[in-house]
């Protein structure tokens, strides 16, 4: 049940990322993908007032993290060092995490399909840990963070294009315990 939910959440976020990044086509294939805010769709008013009033996501939720900080940082080909944009995203995540000390998170490292399975699993672990180390350096308690690698097995963008590969080289933050 939990897994299904997480998987779905991952997909929804992936779709959000696609929409947010549609404007970055045609950039240098080797450059890291520009870190975008993964914009969650605003929730609609369910009160039946007739007014379609968008409100922000629930504070402390996954959607809140995505809107406030972005939950994905991107890497160059075969790289696991953080870019300036990646550091900025993680700094926003760290600030958000300090507001919700009960939140626990999982950092998932991913790789593009242009490598072997076994190497990409190792590369994904490096990326997840690079993101974790940076959050820890900003004062986040390491016991709040676990890391795992999916290697090239769970691409957020299934296409075989340089643009998709750039999106798939990432470290993704998922909440294990939310601050809701």
């Amino acid at each position: 049940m939990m897994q299904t939910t997480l998987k779905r959440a991952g997909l929804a976020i992936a779709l959000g990322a696609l929409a947010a990044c549609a404007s970055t086509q045609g950039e240098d294939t080797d450059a890291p993908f520009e870190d975008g805010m993964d914009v969650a769709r605003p929730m609609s008013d369910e009160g039946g007032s007739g007014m379609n009033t968008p409100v922000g996501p629930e504070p402390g939720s996954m959607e809140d993290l995505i809107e406030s900080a972005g939950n994905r940082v991107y890497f160059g080909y075969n790289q696991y060092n953080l870019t300036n944009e990646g550091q900025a995203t993680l700094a926003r995540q760290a600030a958000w995490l300090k507001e919700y000390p009960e939140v626990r998170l999982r950092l998932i490292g991913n790789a593009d399909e242009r490598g072997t399975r076994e190497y990409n699993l190792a590369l994904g672990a490096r990326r997840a840990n690079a993101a974790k180390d940076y959050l820890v350096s900003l004062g986040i308690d390491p016991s709040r963070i676990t890391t795992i690698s999916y290697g090239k097995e769970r691409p957020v963008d299934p296409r075989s294009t340089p643009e998709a590969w750039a999106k798939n080289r990432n470290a993704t933050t998922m909440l294990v315990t939310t601050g809701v």
Partner: protein
Amino acid sequence: MRELLTGLLAGLALLGAAAPAKAQVEIDITRGRTDPLPVAVPDYLAGSAEVSEVAGQITEVIEADLERSGLFAPIDERAFIQQLDSINVKPRFADWRAINARVLVAGEVEPLADGRVQVNTRLWDVTGNQQLGSIAFKTPRENWRRAAHKVADFVYSQLTGEEGYFDTRVVFVAETGPKEDRTKRLMIMDQDGANPQALTDGLNYDVLTPRFSPAGQQITYLALFENRPAQVYLFNIETGEQEALGTYRGMTFAPRFSPDGESVLFAVEQNGNSDVAVMDLRTRRLRTLTDNPAIDTSPSMSPDGGQITFASDRGGSQQIYVMDADGTNQRRITFGDGTYGTPVWSPRGDLIAFTRQYKSRFYIGVVRPDGTGERLLTESYLDEGPTWSPNGRVLMFHREERPGGPVSLYSIDLTGQNLRPVETPTEASDPAWSPPLK
């Protein structure tokens, strides 16, 4: 040669006294392909009507095995002049020479009182007018496929001097669903694609990089979980039991058995760094063999147990290294452009197969353990993860021919000839060849 045959036929009775014939037909499988050897395989004679169907099926599988090896060209039965009545009478060699056959595989299937069948085969050199060898064995009728594979192994070994690889199986990853949420299950099948059977259900974890134990009863693979680090598992084919090899905070991955089957080599990830380690399966003690801040992964031990090859990016790009089995004397053996991964030692010990990536293409290649003699055998958008046939003459791997296309299994001879698709029920990857079946 005799020893090889004795080993291959252990437990099988030789039919009559196979004359120590000096074959006038031989196939040199170490060279680039010449023309395949024309072979006639008439329908196996049925000792009774009830075994006539299985006799025909055995004939088809023998022919298919020989044909797929690329070394033999079965002749269409419609060309046959002589119709065999018995396999215990010399064939009319001229009749077979007249249709350009070089060898004749003559066989029969006899029903036994206990319900089993006896499969008898004689192999004739129709140029030298002599019998090259003969083989007979009893088997349960439902086992007819393996009987046919054993006959094909016999023919192959008689004519090449090498052990055959037809009576073997392959485990692989069966892939279903969209790329971004794909289910990857462990499957097993005969080497020719028959009898596919799922071994895991794909519900709780995906299976990657399965590998056979040298005894053939166990598989080690990577279990990829949704919400905890991937772990190396051990799976018993007979009992279906599976267990994680140890419990670690980080990921363990890229497993492979040692050639004696007593340990499993794999990579251990800790705080993002991966090193190569070996676990003794009896004591469950883990010994780390590399200690390097770079990514070290994909260990594979030489058949004599003395050395280990692995992949590392310590030199900047990922390349292949070799070290002594205790972790000392680590040295780089590849220096080409691009990256090298998944090194796997040949069961003959003479070569290491690998995946190479250069620019936007992937290749399967081989190199000697001292780094000389690199040869690339295949190329496509994605060719990955070679596995050796037990005789070290054929490689199987997975291929995504074009970007976004289906992923499927292929085999190719070490000569670089005879590229063949391997049929699977779904998309498939990460094949691993079994040792010869007992």
